[in-house]
């Protein structure tokens, strides 16, 4: 009888530990994060760091993201970014996805970057024409006031065609966690394009860890 009681208690403890482990893992995921690469450049006393992302129409099994949804649009290699506090982030986004169209044309405006502009294949721009060909995605950090439309590649562009978008933005001196997202309803096959990858971290939504 006593043996059974001990077995029962032991089973409960083991079950509790396992449940606790999985709940903790679920609540505190450890996603793949890219850390900004340092440069020797300093502007206005702030270090400049680099981050490079690539947008693709589908993550794909061979993509670095190796997401659970290979047929979703996404940012590669991950949407979890880590940059030093008080730095200037030099972003390079290789836009390989086509245009989807903006729900709100206001997001065709470049905001919150150094100079309020960006370069698209080397050309300086402050806004894009949302209808010609229009953005495939935006890179927007609402709480930092940063929003950059990413011009989509032409529908008949060859595979691998890329629009290289670059811009700089300044992050606060204090550590913090900021969400970022795409404001183009780009989730093909979902109602109004707002489902799936638009609602899932790791695809069209991510986090920027400062500091």
């Amino acid at each position: 009888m006593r043996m059974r009681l001990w077995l029962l208690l032991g089973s409960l403890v083991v079950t509790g530990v396992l449940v606790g482990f999985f709940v903790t893992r679920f609540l505190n995921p450890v996603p793949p994060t890219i850390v900004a690469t340092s440069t020797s450049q300093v502007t206005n006393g702030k270090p400049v760091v680099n981050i490079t992302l690539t947008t693709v129409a589908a993550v794909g099994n061979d993509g670095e993201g190796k997401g659970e949804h290979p047929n979703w649009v996404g940012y590669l290699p991950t949407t979890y970014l880590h940059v030093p506090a008080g730095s200037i982030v030099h972003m390079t986004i290789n836009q390989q996805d086509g245009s989807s169209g903006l729900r709100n044309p206001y997001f065709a405006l470049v905001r919150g970057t150094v100079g309020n502009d960006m370069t698209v294949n080397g050309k300086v721009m402050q806004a894009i024409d949302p209808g010609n060909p229009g953005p495939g995605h935006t890179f927007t950090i609402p709480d930092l006031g940063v929003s950059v439309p990413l011009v989509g590649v032409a529908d008949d562009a060859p595979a691998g065609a890329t629009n290289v978008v670059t811009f700089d933005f300044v992050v606060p001196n204090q550590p913090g966690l900021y969400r970022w997202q795409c404001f183009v309803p780009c989730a093909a096959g979902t109602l109004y394009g707002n489902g799936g990858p638009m609602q899932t971290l790791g695809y069209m939504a991510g986090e920027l860890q400062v500091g």
Partner: protein
Amino acid sequence: MRNRASALRAVFVTWLILAIAGDVGLALSPMPPGEASTLASDESFTMKLLALMAWPVFSAVLAALFCTFVVNRMAPPTAEVSAAELRGNNRIQTTWIAVTLVVVLSIAVYGTVALAMDQPGGGVSTVSAALPQPADASQPLEVQVIAQQWWFTYRYPTYGGIETAQLVLPVGQKIEFHITSLDVTHSFWFYALGVKADAVPLNDNVVTATPTQIGTYRVQCAELCGLWHGNMADSTAMVVSTSDFTAWVQQQTTADAPVMKYLEPYSHTYLEPPAIYGG
């Protein structure tokens, strides 16, 4: 019998002191949402009025419970006395009915009058969507709130239909918020101004408020709307002086210049997007 009468008297006196002290405390306390706009002040006054009326009733219920659970055990009534206390006691019954009637009818009359005086009434716009409206302090300033997953943007038809990612309002001018959504249902909540209204696609929801205090405030979405609902908030909304507002409008007009030709013509609602979007 004497013990019971003394206990009931003590409970009554205690209730009276609690009711008066509580109402004095409530009358002196600030009530949400505050005094940052005329609308918020009206809401605060209503909250205070209801609290002042509710507290004596609530404390009376507590006193009655105390009598039931404590006094009745310490000094139990005899069956005859208990019946005599209520049955056929016209004074108690008349007082009970009169107090209840006064409380309920007062609230009903107050609520009816407040609704009848509400401006502009029932979420109906007093201005047309035609552009532009004069930037006259005597006229309500129309500000459109556009919700989308997951941010609010704002359009100012009076000033050429500029759109901004930050809400800035002039102090002392009646604001007519026109609230709509581009995707799912959101709710625009400007707590300090007492403004909270659903943002529904293809609908124009109208709320008016006159900001009376310069400051920085928080706006947020109050309708569960998806992944970043919890982050659909902005603590940089501002109420500023008229001159600062004018300067801000000029600054935003300059900032918006590259995108103005791409913005949709100002409208109280915007067309439904194609159901199959994205790609």
